[in-house]
């Protein structure tokens, strides 16, 4: 891109990109431009490990189905913007932003809700019922509702589907006179005696509170999970902690950027100033991408961001050091700029790709918010290559032939060049 037109085109492109970024930053108001992860806005994250029920293997389909059921349960709780994902260990990760009663949600999500109808065959010496095989399960329910029976006891009444109704009638007609146990997640809820064949609906009794009844109705309604879920980790973060972290890292970022700008201008004068322009572009484009992609940013993500700010000027430092070196060898400014960029490019690419390799490994095999770190690191590397190499290069080559670009502009003293050349010649 040696021609003047070429450089102007590059700069124009960057200004267009900047415009697009500003659009995304301001479209929903600058306050809401970046979507915050759970650890910053507050909320609950639960990591659940699917475990097989009995001998059934945990298949991908089973986990898919479990995810869907969990989502339905959360929806019926009225929680907005829930996120149910799966990591590479096949753990299910549930994220619930800003909820009031995390314990109830955790309880609801983890309930397998395996409803079984079994005949009580006998009673053992401790008075516990000995149950026969499962005759029917809860998958043929069309409706479940919490309420009271005529005696004022709390119940959950269940209505079967047509098929379920027929099956229930068959089961009850074959077992008249026996006790039918209604078992929920391995616990016998009630065991009424069958007086006659029943069709249509069934009732769960022995519930303490109406809230509990509502929860049972809800999980029955959304269906049984095809797997058992073990809670591996649950984490609830109040809204204040995240705001603290966010404010502090923003402040650190702003101060850090200012210090970097001062250092770059002190060291490289005019060149430094151009790299600061590159840095400003870097930050706005980064911001725009986060706003546009709507990727939630987590605390580790912010740490990654802060790290990349320092790294963003690294490419410029490499290039400028090379330009200075070439100038001191007595090269013309055009040759020095050209050589400087060319010599530094290999190091820039190689060092950034090694970082990208690790970021990729971290993203693929990371757990939870750690992946946020990898994402920001990778985005940062891409943008810094664009701004620190391509943009800065275009600006430099555009002004290279003007009178602004003197050795002093580059931060090299004319006397030093002459002195060095003299020393070299004498040798």
């Amino acid at each position: 891109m040696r021609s003047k037109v070429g450089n102007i085109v590059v700069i124009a492109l960057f200004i267009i990109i900047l415009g697009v970024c500003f659009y995304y930053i301001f479209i929903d108001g600058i306050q809401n431009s970046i979507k915050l992860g759970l650890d910053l806005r507050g909320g609950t994250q639960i990591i659940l490990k699917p475990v097989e029920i009995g001998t059934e293997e945990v298949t991908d389909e089973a986990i898919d189905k479990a995810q869907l059921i969990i989502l339905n349960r959360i929806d019926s709780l009225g929680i907005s913007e829930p996120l149910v994902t799966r990591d590479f260990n096949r753990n299910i990760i549930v994220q619930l932003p800003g909820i009031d009663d995390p314990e109830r949600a955790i309880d609801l999500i983890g309930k397998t809700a395996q409803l079984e109808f079994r005949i009580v065959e006998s009673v053992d010496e401790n008075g516990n019922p000995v149950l026969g095989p499962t005759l029917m399960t809860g998958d043929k329910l069309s409706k479940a509702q919490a309420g009271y029976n005529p005696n004022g006891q709390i119940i959950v009444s269940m209505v079967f589907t047509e098929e379920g109704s027929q099956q229930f009638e068959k089961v009850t007609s074959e077992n008249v006179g026996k006790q039918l146990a209604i078992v929920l997640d391995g616990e016998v809820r009630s065991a009424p005696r069958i007086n006659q064949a029943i069709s249509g609906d069934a009732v769960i009794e022995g519930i303490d509170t109406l809230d509990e009844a509502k929860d049972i109705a809800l999980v029955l309604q959304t269906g049984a999970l095809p797997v058992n879920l073990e809670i591996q980790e649950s984490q609830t973060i109040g809204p204040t902690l995240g705001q603290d972290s966010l404010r502090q890292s923003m402040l650190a970022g702003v101060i850090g950027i200012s210090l970097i700008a001062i250092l770059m201008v002190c060291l490289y004068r005019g060149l430094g100033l151009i790299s600061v322009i590159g840095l400003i572009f870097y930050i706005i484009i980064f911001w725009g991408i986060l706003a546009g992609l709507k990727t939630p940013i987590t605390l580790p993500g912010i740490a990654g961001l802060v790290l990349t700010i320092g790294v963003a000027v690294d490419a410029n430092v490499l290039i400028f050091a090379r330009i200075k070196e070439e100038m001191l060898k007595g090269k013309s400014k055009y040759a020095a700029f050209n050589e400087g960029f060319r010599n530094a490019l290999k190091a820039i690419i190689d060092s950034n790709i090694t970082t990208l390799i690790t970021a990729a490994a971290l993203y693929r095999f990371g757990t939870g918010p750690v992946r946020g770190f990898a994402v920001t690191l990778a985005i940062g590397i891409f943008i810094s290559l664009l701004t620190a190499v391509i943009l800065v290069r275009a600006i430099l080559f555009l002004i290279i032939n003007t009178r602004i670009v003197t050795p002093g502009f580059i931060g090299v003293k004319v006397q030093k060049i002459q002195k060095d050349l003299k020393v070299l010649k004498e040798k």
Partner: protein
Amino acid sequence: MAIKGWLAKKDNTSGQELKEVLSERPYKYNFMKQSKWVSIASIIFIIVGIIMTLTRGFNFGIDFLGGNLMEVKFDRAVEINEIRNIMEESGLGKSILQNTKPDQYIIRTTPLSDEQKNNILETFDKKIGISKPLIQDRVVAASFSKTITRNALIAVAISFAGVLIYVWIRFTARFALVAIVELLHDLLIILSFYAITYREFNTNTTAVILTILGYSLNDGIVIFDRIREELRINKRDKYIDLTNYSINKTFVRSLITGTTTLFPIIIILFIGNEILKDFAFGLLLGIISGSYSSIYIGPPILVAWNNRFPRYKK
């Protein structure tokens, strides 16, 4: 080939004398000479770290041990003893307490049942008064650490393999293996530091360590790049001089980039809360370790390797 190219350039009048003089590659600091002491210091540090790991182990957080963590904001400033007493009454005297603000505490316990947890919170509320929702509330199953550890190890293995292959392709097998040695060194230094200082080791720590593995090689690659370039254009100087020269030439850049990267991190160490500080601390450590291993650990191995099995001028 390269000598031929160099000779050909001699006819080019413009830079003739310059080329000749420059190819003597004068340098200011003899990094290779200092490297012996630095590497001995590194090795001692790592050995102490290993001994501490074997005898005392790491101060693992609840991510690794399993358990409950609550950060509670009380209605007034409280002394740590007051909380300790309440915990002891509930039979949880061994819990770890840490105040983040005068009226705010992190309480770490072994895994609690819902009932136990609610009991403690109710007692706190009755005796001191707490505000809800809690600032943090975490539960981790003891078995979860296996998953985290396995993930971290896989990530380390994959990134090592990736770096090895990439550096091998772009440079040579020697550079690739030395890059891995540098990475291992940084990894061991960070782990030793956590073992010796007994700082809490949690999932964020693993994230930081993995990031450092990506970043710390930056300096190393820049120096490798310079050595690679010198090896191509300079066949006259000895490998050790050439290496010293390359480090001298890239040193200012390493210093400046190190400084710019550390600026925001050091500020976070001053103004950040506990979680942020944890991150910043690990990054600080990794950046420093990465910077010096790229000068004092990697290049000397390259030189020693070339002395033993010369491929370039000894």
